[in-house]
């Protein structure tokens, strides 16, 4: 697409996605040539409307697509110099890539604590380390501690979301793919989540690829952003630049001029910009 992405694959990005096409069910073409890269220890965010292909991109990276009858038909995804399609999802986890899936996906019949512990399945650094991390997760999400013996199928939506995020943290990943981590969380917790992300990134040097609808937050906490529309990258740039971009401001942040509009007063009309036409 643009030069920046082309040469980036060679200049040491941790994950580079090169012009991939994804097809579901052998007929539905969803990604039509997406390229992006995630530098080591960076926070990169993927933005885009519903159905743009964010989830699909993340699943392509973590190799979970196959379980949904989806396929990368063109292009390649490279993680640390290796093609991910040669690895199974679990091998990827062992190598440090963990995904928080959209829609929680907790293990319904396991308790909250058991859910968190399965997150540490691939770890070999001993019980004590795992226990310490468990406590850390409980510290992040005190609500989970209260519900630790609750069966995950019965806890509230937000609690499930915390469990899903906590479970991914338990793997001590080096790269974490977050698919809408703030969904369904109370306002304070949304802040909290982004703080956690920042902390992980700064303290533990975790690389983060984030798909978010909360554009404002995502751009404030990330370093680089890509905007997907209809299975294509339509814009990318440093987060701070994107935050200042007029289009982004208008369509994703809802600020025109300086004032936020009231939801009661918004007019109902299609305003989505046709980026490509």
């Amino acid at each position, binding site marked *: 697409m643009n030069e920046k992405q082309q040469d980036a694959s060679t200049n040491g990005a941790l994950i580079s996605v090169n012009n991939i096409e994804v*097809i579901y*069910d*052998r*007929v*539905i*073409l969803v990604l039509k040539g997406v390229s992006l890269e995630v530098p080591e220890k960076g926070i990169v965010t993927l933005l885009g409307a519903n159905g743009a292909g964010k989830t699909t991109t993340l699943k392509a990276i973590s190799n979970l697509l196959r379980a949904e009858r989806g396929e990368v038909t063109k292009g390649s995804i490279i993680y640390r110099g290796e093609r991910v399609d040669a690895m199974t999802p679990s091998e990827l986890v062992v190598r440090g890539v963990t995904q928080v899936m959209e829609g929680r996906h907790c293990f319904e019949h396991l308790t909250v604590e058991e859910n968190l512990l399965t997150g540490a399945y691939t770890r070999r650094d001993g019980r004590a380390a795992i226990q310490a991390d468990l406590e850390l997760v409980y510290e992040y999400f005190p609500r989970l501690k209260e519900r630790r013996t609750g069966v995950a199928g019965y806890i509230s939506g937000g609690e499930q979301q915390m469990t899903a995020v906590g479970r991914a943290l338990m793997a001590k990943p080096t790269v974490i793919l977050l698919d809408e981590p703030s969904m369904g969380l109370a306002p304070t917790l949304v802040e909290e989540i982004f703080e956690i992300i920042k902390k992980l990134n700064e303290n533990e040097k975790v690389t983060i690829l984030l798909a978010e609808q909360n554009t404002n937050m995502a751009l404030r906490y990330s370093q680089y952003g890509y905007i997907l529309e209809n299975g294509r990258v339509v814009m990318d740039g440093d987060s701070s630049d994107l935050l200042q971009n007029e289009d982004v401001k208008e369509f994703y942040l809802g600020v025109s001029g300086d004032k936020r509009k009231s939801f009661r007063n918004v007019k109902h009309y299609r305003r989505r910009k046709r980026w490509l036409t």
Partner: protein
Amino acid sequence: MFYREVGQYKSSYRADQAIFPITNDRIGVMLILIVAFVVPPLSGNQYIMGPILTQLLVFGLAALGLNLLTGYAGQVSLGSGGFMAVGAFGCYNLVLRLPEIPIFIDFILAGLMAAAVGILFGIPSLRIKGFYLAVATLASQFFLLWIFDHVGWFTNYDPAGVASAPTTTLFGSLAEEGGVLGFLAPINVLVSGPNATPEAKYILTLSVVVVLALLAKNLVRGMTGRAWMAIRDFDIAAEIIGIRPLRTKLLAFAISSFYCGVAGALYVFTYVGNADTEAFDLIRSFTILFMIIIGGLGSIMGSFLGAAFIVLLPPFLNILASHFGEGTLSGATLANLELIIFGGSIVFILAVEPQGIARMWQIAKEKLRQWPFPY
């Protein structure tokens, strides 16, 4: 290029809801039906008409019945054999004891009996779900067969417990020469018993199946079908939007059993000519379930495709084997190879397309629609 819906605009919702909205499909189905009604009888090939097509139709109908229950309403049942038996022995007794009734009315009555029994055994479905329900429905399978085995009346006290289809005419004894409905005598053909022609049996079966399949199609594209599918996909949500779970499930059990019952009756009267309970045993119930899974859950056509696969593949392999294997391989080896290939093709189909043959067919059509473009 030739298979397109481009340019076929629908001007009303009704047209949009037609069974085959695409003209090519409509023509295709018409052609298939005409061929089905005309060609086999003209060919006079008894093997094709009898064990191949009639068997296919009968089990296809049973599979369709189960598909309504399992594929549409989501209630996995392993009791279809039992319900077929109710229809079979019910119809046998009706014809035996009330020969005046035209046979197709007997079929309906037999189906209704099966439906009644189906409702009874459907009651637990309110509480029991999934494989638990599947296993629990085996109760009906075993219990019903035991009843038919142990109450001699059902088989007219035959020492071996075999119900053998009496010689029957299409419109019943009243339509015989001199009867009240004597004017029907010329078209009152024999449809079962040793002297009925294979053609008559085949056409009767085909007619019954076509009519019932059409009714089923209407059901599933209407509110009934939607209620079933809602229960299947998410029972709690369905209840919260106002669908009555028990009523909907019982209706599914009833209609499904009705179809199975009619299939059982056809089995006795137009296919084999007689039956004991062995014909409707556990394996039968399982086979019917296989048919709908392989054919495609929640697809009317899938029921028949699945039946074709399950019913026809073994003889097909057998024929192949006897043509190519004769002499080089022992009979036992061939028989086992058949089993392996049969099982292997099931696995293969599911691996390629878990949604079954019907879905494969659909994807093929989709591709055809887009052809020559890849997506």
